[in-house]
């Protein structure tokens, strides 16, 4: 009887451990390589355009050293989940290459589970590829409707309500 109890316990233990690791990997299905991909301005233009006809797009350029970027980041993550079916969010880290690991850690802390991007190349072509209206100041946000038309863009941090207002406008356009 005691032997059977031990076997049963071990079986339950193994099953528990197996499910535990499954749920852990489910929470982080995306590899580091996919979570943060290097991308030039040109490549990012292609990514942004690829959603035309499918979903509205919110592009946000941020950096780990940028306090207003960090403050508004969870708002955007939350809104992405809220409007998942109609909105895609493209996060682009403008951190220095030495801070890439830090950017990756931050993304994980924020439970980001979709592909985001890490700026490569020089500032000027990157800034110009993202938006003519952007001077290079961080954070920067632009929101497009699902036809790729510009709905809003701004430099400076923003509150949750402002993001939601323009996301709704983009979705309803």
């Amino acid at each position, binding site marked *: 009887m005691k032997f059977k109890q031990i076997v049963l316990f071990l079986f339950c233990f193994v099953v528990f451990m197996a499910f535990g690791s499954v749920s852990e990997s489910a929470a982080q299905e995306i590899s580091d390589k996919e979570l943060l991909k290097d991308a030039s301005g040109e490549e990012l233009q292609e990514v942004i355009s690829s959603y035309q006809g499918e979903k509205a797009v919110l592009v946000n350029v941020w950096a780990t050293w940028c306090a207003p970027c960090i403050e508004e980041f969870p708002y955007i993550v939350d809104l992405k989940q809220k409007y998942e079916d109609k909105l895609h969010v493209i996060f682009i880290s403008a951190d220095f290459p030495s801070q890439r690991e830090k950017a990756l850690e931050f993304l994980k802390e924020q439970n980001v589970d979709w592909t985001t991007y890490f700026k490569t190349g020089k500032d*000027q072509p990157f800034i110009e590829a993202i938006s003519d209206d952007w001077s*290079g*100041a961080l954070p920067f946000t632009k929101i497009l409707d699902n036809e790729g038309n510009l709905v809003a863009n701004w430099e400076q941090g923003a509150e949750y309500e402002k993001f939601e207002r323009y996301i709704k406008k983009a979705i309803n356009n």
Partner: protein
Amino acid sequence: MTIMKLHKLLYALPILLAAGIIAFLPVEDKKADRLEIGAKAPLTDVKVTDVSGEVLTLKEVAGENGLLVNFSCNTCPWVEAWEDRYNPISKMAEENGIGVIMLNPNAAIRDDGESMEDMQARAKSSGYDFYYALDEGAKLAEAFGATRTPDIFLFNSDMELVYTGAIDDNAKSAEEVEQPYLKNAIQSLVAGKEINPKTTKALGCTIKWPK
């Protein structure tokens, strides 16, 4: 109420309603547009206080060949990235008769690293060899249409803007700069040659405008 008055009220009501709605619509923050090339430097008689305690104006700082203004601050890593280039550029500018001033416009976070005391500490630790003054209420930054730190504005002897934007094309490393935009602009200005490019962009921190 007479019928006439009621009619008037009915006509006025939609107008009043529209006015009320417009009044409560969210107003987007829109700072002034960046000064255009050729525009005169604004607010050149406005007094600013340097870290040394000296009170001066942009007009007084300007040299015989022009003026270099850099909107900067203490807390932005992008400002820090170019730190090794501020003194050499200032020296070059001054040797060519161009006065130099760095202005701190971060009015919203004076208590968070951008006070005069913080500026004094920074100027001392970095050995700044140029004026570093406080832009009270970010008035100058707003008038110039500056948007980030650092942000460069170079004026000629008539105080007309001839170059604005980035210091060069590589914040990370002075050795890997391919396009020293500002140095080239200064050299061209002094030589009477055309400056090209006249405007450039670089990443930086948003200016912390007063609330």
